[in-house]
C-alpha cells in the first residue's frame, strides 16, 4: 500500500505541481487550500505525512500544527519561505518534524518524505538505536562506536538518547533544552552548544561533515537517521 501524503498549501500552482509529482512517484495524495479543510482532510484521509505551508488564508501553519498534534503523531514537514524563520521555529516547537525551504526540488522533497516515513515506522520503544557505526543500547545504557565503548556523562547520555530516539526530526534548541535539562533551562542555548560539541568530539563527529548530529542553523539539531 502506497504511503498517503496530505498537502496543505494555498498556492494553487505549487499545490498541483507537488501533488502531481508525488503521485508520479506512487504516493496517494490529498490536497487542501486552507487550514480548516486541511485539518478535516487529516481526520478523514489519515495521511502518513503532512506537507504544511506556514502562510494560510484562514489560520497560521503553527495553529494547524498544534491542532494536528492534539490527535496524531503523523510526521509534519513544514514548507517555508526565507523570512518565515520565526514561524518555522514556532511550528517545529509545536511538533512539526522537519522543514523544507521554498523553492525546493522534487528529489529533496522525496528524500524528506522518506526520512519522515522511516522515523514514523521506528517505534520509540526499541531497545537498541543504531546509526552507522554508532550503537546506543538503552537497556545497558551503553554507547559504542564500532567496538569501542564511548564514555559519556549522564547528561551527555540523556542528550544523545533524546536526539537518537527522534532521528530524522529537526529538534529546536528549546525543545532539546526542555527535554534534557528541564523547562527552566529552555533559553540556555549556549550551554546546549557546549554539550553538543563535547558529544561530537567523543563520538569522533565533525561539525562540518557530520555523521550523527547535524546543525540546523538558527533552529536546532537533527540526529541523522540511518541511511539518510
Amino acid at each position, binding site marked *: 500500500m502506497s504511503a498517503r501524503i496530505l498537502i496543505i498549501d494555498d498556492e494553487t500552482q*505549487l499545490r498541483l505541481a507537488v501533488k502531481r*509529482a508525488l503521485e*508520479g512517484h506512487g504516493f496517494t495524495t490529498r490536497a487542501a487550500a486552507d487550514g480548516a479543510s486541511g485539518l478535516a482532510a487529516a481526520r478523514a484521509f489519515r495521511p502518513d505525512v503532512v506537507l504544511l505551508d506556514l502562510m494560510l488564508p*484562514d489560520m497560521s501553519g503553527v495553529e494547524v500544527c498544534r491542532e494536528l498534534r492534539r490527535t496524531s503523531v503523523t510526521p509534519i514537514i513544514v514548507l517555508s*519561505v526565507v*523570512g518565515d524563520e520565526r514561524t518555522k521555529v514556532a511550528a517545529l516547537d509545536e511538533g512539526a518534524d522537519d522543514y523544507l525551504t*521554498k*523553492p525546493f526540488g*522534487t528529489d529533496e522533497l522525496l528524500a524528506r518524505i522518506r526520512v519522515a516515513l522511516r522515523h514514523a515506522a521506528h517505534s520509540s520503544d526499541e531497545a537498541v538505536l543504531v546509526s552507522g557505526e554508532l550503537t546506543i543500547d538503552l537497556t545497558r545504557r551503553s554507547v559504542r562506536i564500532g567496538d569501542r565503548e564511548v564514555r559519556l556523562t549522564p547528561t551527555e547520555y540523556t542528550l544523545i538518547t533524546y536526539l537518537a530516539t527522534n532521528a530524522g526530526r529537526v529538534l529546536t534548541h528549546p525543545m532539546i533544552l526542555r527535554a534534557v535539562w528541564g523547562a527552566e533551562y529552555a533559553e540556555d542555548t549556549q550551554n546546549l552548544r557546549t554539550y553538543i560539541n563535547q558529544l561530537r568530539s567523543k563520538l569522533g563527529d565533525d561539525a562540518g561533515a557530520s555523521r550523527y548530529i547535524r546543525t540546523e542553523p538558527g533552529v536546532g539539531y537533527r540526529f541523522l537517521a540511518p541511511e539518510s
Partner: protein
Amino acid sequence: MRNCLAFHAPAASHPIRSPGWRYNRSMYAQARSRHPIVGIVVAMASVAVFTAATAPLQGHVGLLNEGLVLLLLVLLISSWWGWRVGLFAAVLSNLALNFFFVEPLHRFTVESPANVFGLAIFLLVSAVGGSLLASARAAAAEARVRAAETEVLLRLTRAMIGRTEPSDALASLCREVVEALSAPGAAVISGSGGQWFVHASAGTDGAARAPDSAERAMAERALATDAISRLGNTGLVGRGRRPRIVIPAGQSRAHHAAFGCAFVPLHIGNRTLGVLRVDGPIGDTPFRDQPDRLLVAFANEAAQGMQRAELAQTAAHADALMQADEMKSALMTSISHDLKTPLAGIKASVSSLLDTAVDWTAEDRRAFLETIDSQADRLNHVISDILDLNRIEAGAIAPQLRRVDVRTMLDDVRERTSYIAMDRDVRVETTPGLVVRADESLIVQALVNLVENAAKYSVTGGAITLKAGLHDGVVQIEVEDEGPGIAAADLPHVFERFYRAADQSRRVKGSGLGLAIVKGFVTLSGGRVRVESSPGGTRFVITLPEAAAMPVPATA
C-alpha cells in the same frame, strides 16, 4: 546710584497676568518720581512746613509730642525714598527739634541733659525705624520681582517645551525675552571672527540684523568671559544698519545707556551654543532695574530647552532610522516571499520533469509546463512592480503628457485586465468625448493595478466598474468594487509601500507595492489619487486635468 535704585524697586503691586504682561504704567511713573533728590527736597519742605505750622506752640507742646510727629514724617520718607533719604530726614528733624523746640530756642545748644538724651533717642529711633521700614519694603519689592521672574521663566519653559526643532526653540526664546523685558528686539547669534550668523530673532525688523564689528567683539567677549557684556549707547542714534530707536517718554537716556545692548553667552554643558543679544532700551517691567539676573536665568533655561529640543530631535531621528530599518526588513520579507513563491512552483515542476525515475504522461508534462509558464509570468509581474517603484523613487521616469481619450484608455484597461478578472463583470461607464492631459502608459498601468487590486480584495464575482466624468473642470476616473471595503484604520495607509491591511494580509497574497505604484504614476502624470471606502465597496478616484484647458501646440 544703581544700588540706591535697587532699593527703590516698585513698591506697588504689579498685576501680572499670563499670557502677556499688563503693567500698571502709573505705578511706574510714581516709581520714577522717587528720585533721592526729590526725597531730600520733600524732607526739607515737610520739616519746614511742620516747623512753621507749629511755630506758635514753640516751647509749649513739649519735646515728646513734636518728636513723635517728626518721627512719623521720617518713617514715611524712609519708606518712600529709602533709608539714606530717611537718615537725612532724621538728622534734619533732629536739628529742627533742637533749634526750634528745645531750650534755649533758636540755638543748636541744649541746656537740659534730659533734652540732650531725648534728641539722641529721637535720632536713634527715627534712623533705625526708618531703615527697618525701608529694607522691609525693599524685600517685599524684591520678592515681587522674583515672583515675576519665576512667572516669566515658566512661560519660557512652556514656550520651549515640546519644540523638536532647535531653531523653533531659539525663536521662542527670543520672543519671550522681547516680551518679558519689553525690549525692541532679541536675537541668538553665533560664529567667530568675521563669520557670524543670526539663528533666530524676534521684535523689530532690525533685530534680525547681522552683527557689526562692535557687536561681534562684544559677543566674543561674552563667550570668552562667560558673562554678560554690553555695548553702551547702542542704537541711540540710527547708525549703519542698526535700527533707530526712539527712547520712550519717561525713560532717561542714562537709563537706556546703562542697558545698551546686552550679550548673554549660551552654553549647553561645555558646548557653546551662541550668544543671546538683547537690544535696549528695555521697557517698564519689574526687571527694568535688574535685567541681568533675568537674562542669566533665561540663558540657563534656554540652554536646557535647547538640550531638550536636541534630544527630541535625536530621538525623532532614531525613530525614523528604526522605521526605515523596519521598512527595509518588511521589504526583504515581502520581496523574498513574492519572488520565492512563484519560483517554488517553477522549481517543483522543472525538477519533476527532469526526474527520470518517473515516466510522465503527456498530460503530466503539459500540466508542469503550464505551471512553469504561469509562475514565470507572476514572477515577471513582481519584478516589474519592484522595478517600477524603484524608478518612481529614483525619479527616473520622465512623464510624457499628451492628450488622451478617456474612453479608449478605459477600454484598453478592460482588455488588459480580462485575464485577471476572469469571473468578474468589468464595466466601463464614461461621458463620451472626455479628453485628459496625462501620460497614457502611466495612467493605464495605474488603472490596471487598481482593477487587479479590486479583483483581489473585493467579494468573489462582484462587479468592478471603471467610471469617468467631468467635475469642476477636472476629469475623475473611478475604479469601484462591491465590498467588503477597507477598514477605516487602514484607509490612510493604503498608498504606503508594503502596507497590507491586517485582516487581508493572510487571505490575499501580494507585495503591498501595487497601490504605491498607482500613487507614484498618477502623481507623475500630474494627477491625484484618493480612496473612499464603505462596507458596500471601495472606490479609488483618480483626478486629471481636462485636456481642453491645455494650450494647443502650434504644430498640432
